[in-house]
């Protein structure tokens, strides 16, 4: 059988979009999380925390633009349906992102008396953006059902995701700082992990009731067997990381990056589960990825560019992270 481009391309693009969302959630997850943790940090610590994300946040957010861009360019039908259904939550997300994005810069440039105001705006924007993302995810999982039950489920996911982002933020602080702040971040991580675990348990319990479709995809034999490693592995990683929080930070700062990598792995597993719940729909129960896709010739020309450019992007993103590797120092324009 010859390779069938019209069938393969939408699938490839669904994969690419998934990858962009996953990278976004992991990368912007930690800087949104640091924004959430701002409320628990002191003035001097806040500067260090900003220094830990300052050179990266812009590139992190670009992955969201890529994800939405891919949705827009590869699945124009779905783009309209999803975003009009989520009109208000998207708006709330954007307000959050606008506020925190500019607060980053304003807090460093305004007269020192006004810095507090922008710190608060940074915290608020981060919380709003995280909650809005979680809410949108919850409502989307249920097939954009906007009934009361669906909204309640969305709120549940919102808090769960915000807690998960806070955990990511704490893990990043552990990696990028030392001394008192690092110890504090370990405690933040422990608390955030508990909240995330509670949220995830609640979401897992609610999903079968909220969406029989997803329930049917998971709880049939033998799929259940193949899928079982996802939840089991996630739970084990969770427990292990929680135990680790009692031993961190370690002498010589060993394993400082481990919490972040573990959380990233948990995100990957959770994402795989979500992907399984959706497939083959891009708008749950309404549009499959093939029904929503752009014309083959348009997808082909984007793919050609993507294949060339994406490895380069990943390469220089790694380079940028390496340049600013090590512990965060005060961030100055030099």
């Amino acid at each position: 059988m010859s390779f069938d481009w019209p069938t393969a391309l939408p699938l490839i693009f669904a994969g690419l979009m998934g990858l962009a969302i996953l990278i976004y959630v992991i990368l912007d997850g930690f800087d949104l999380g640091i924004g959430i943790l701002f409320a628990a940090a002191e003035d001097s610590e806040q500067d260090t925390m900003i220094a830990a994300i300052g050179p990266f946040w812009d590139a992190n957010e670009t992955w969201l633009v890529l994800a939405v861009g891919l949705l827009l360019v590869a699945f124009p039908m779905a783009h309209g349906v999803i975003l009009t259904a989520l009109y208000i939550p998207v708006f709330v997300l954007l307000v959050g992102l606008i506020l925190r994005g500019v607060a980053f810069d304003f807090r460093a440039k305004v007269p020192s008396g006004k810095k507090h105001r922008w710190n608060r705006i940074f915290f608020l924007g981060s919380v709003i953006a995280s909650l809005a993302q979680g809410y949108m995810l919850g409502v989307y999982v249920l097939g954009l059902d906007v009934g009361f039950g669906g909204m309640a489920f969305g709120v549940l996911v919102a808090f769960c995701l915000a807690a998960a982002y806070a955990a990511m933020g704490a893990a990043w602080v552990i990696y990028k700082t030392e001394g008192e702040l690092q110890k504090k971040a370990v405690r933040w991580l422990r608390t955030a992990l508990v909240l995330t675990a509670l949220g995830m348990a609640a979401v897992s319990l609610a999903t079968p009731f909220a969406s029989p479709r997803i329930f049917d995809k998971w709880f049939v034999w033998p799929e259940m067997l193949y899928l079982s490693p996802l939840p089991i592995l996630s739970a084990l990683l969770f427990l292990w990381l929680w135990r680790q929080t009692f031993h961190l930070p370690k002498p010589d700062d060993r394993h400082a990056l481990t919490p972040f990598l573990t959380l990233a792995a948990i995100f990957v597993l959770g994402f795989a589960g979500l992907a399984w719940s959706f497939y083959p729909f891009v708008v749950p129960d309404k549009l499959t990825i093939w029904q929503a896709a752009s014309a083959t010739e348009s997808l082909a020309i984007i793919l050609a560019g993507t294949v060339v450019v994406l490895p380069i992007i990943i390469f220089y993103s790694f380079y940028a992270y390496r340049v600013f590797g090590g512990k965060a120092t005060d961030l100055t324009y030099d």
Partner: protein
Amino acid sequence: MDPLILSRIQFGANISFHILFPTITIALGWVLLFFKLRYNATNDSAWMRAYFTWVKVFALSFAMGVVSGVTMSFQFGTNWPGYMEKVGNIAGPLLAYEILTAFFLEAAFLGIMLFGFRRVSNRVHTLATVLVAGGTTLSAFWIIALNSWMQTPAGFEMIDGKAHAVDWWAIVFNPSMPYRLVHMLLASGLTVSFLIAGLSALRYLNGDRSESMWKALRTGVFTAAILIPIQIFAGDQHGLNTLQHQPQKIAAMEANWTTGANVPLVLFALPDEAAKENKFEIAIPDGASLVLRHSTNGVVPGLDAYPGNHPPVFPLFWSFRIMVGTGLLMLAVSWSAAFFLKRRHSLPKPLAMLMVPMALSGWLATLAGWYTTEIGRQPWLVTGVLKTADAVGPVAGSHVALTLAVYLILYVLLLIAYLGVLVHLALKAAKDGDTSPLPGVMKAALSQPAAGE
């Protein structure tokens, strides 16, 4: 409330707010590169001081551009789903290439450009500045290609009511694209040179006579003086291109109601669309024929040739005149400032005081120009392919009204904060003069010589 008009106002507000910041970053990236290269060549630390002052403006403008740009990428879907459904096959790849080739490049190297001076070698830092400036310009290339395609679509065919690409070269380099790109890049250059000249004039008025102030002031004034005649020529060419491809836009810009020869150039009027006439008209006889056809009896298209299919006259007529008027003022101010700097090595106080508000003249002209070209495309979203009214989404008017109100409040507050910070940075720089500490003299490991070491 009508979701169509509300969505249009919302998108207009959003894109107006957005364009302010790319207009600065596109050219400011290259100006920063110029400062950096001058420093590399002369080892004069004043160039580096100018760099560090203006890189802060760049960082802040970039952040404002990013967040308002993210908002726009979502609004395509939330308010205008019909757009991507109809022409997604064309617009999609152009936007995708903008994200892939430009956005990531800018974002990744911005960190190094802003905070990496002591972390990478001087060569890499200069390279990062080149890549960021190149990224912003490349981003302008792609988005202008898409915008121009919406104005003068080419290289496509309609199959089952959807646009499909036939010739990508013709799509990207559509008839109005080269003109619009040049016009916009020059506009960006002028916006930045007047911003730099204006804020430097503010420092000058505050008694700052430091080397870094002079260097920035001269860079701003001389760049403006060189670019403005080129821009006037490029704008004229762009207008002739529009005459050829979108004559109804020209007819509305000139408020010319009837097609014919010996058409006057209207300098002032209150166009009345209902009565199809101009009130309080002041005009130069045969002027429009002369400008547009280079002959007094040249035939100029009038609005009567496009019944029900031409853009609204009043906003076009006035936005075009505001743009041209601002341009002429820019010419007068930049040339007189250049004269005084060249001959007298000083700046008369009244001229300096005029230059301070002129710091925002680029914004005014750019917005007026974009209003001319974008309102001039109406009633079409994509000329001849998709009407604006057919692209709006099913969202309730009350929802759009709510979000519009919040966006407007947010944008006004952010604009005030942004301008406040610009003034604060200028006054702070004026106070510090050339005594502000440079990174090279701070106690830290240096990967390169700095501060004239």
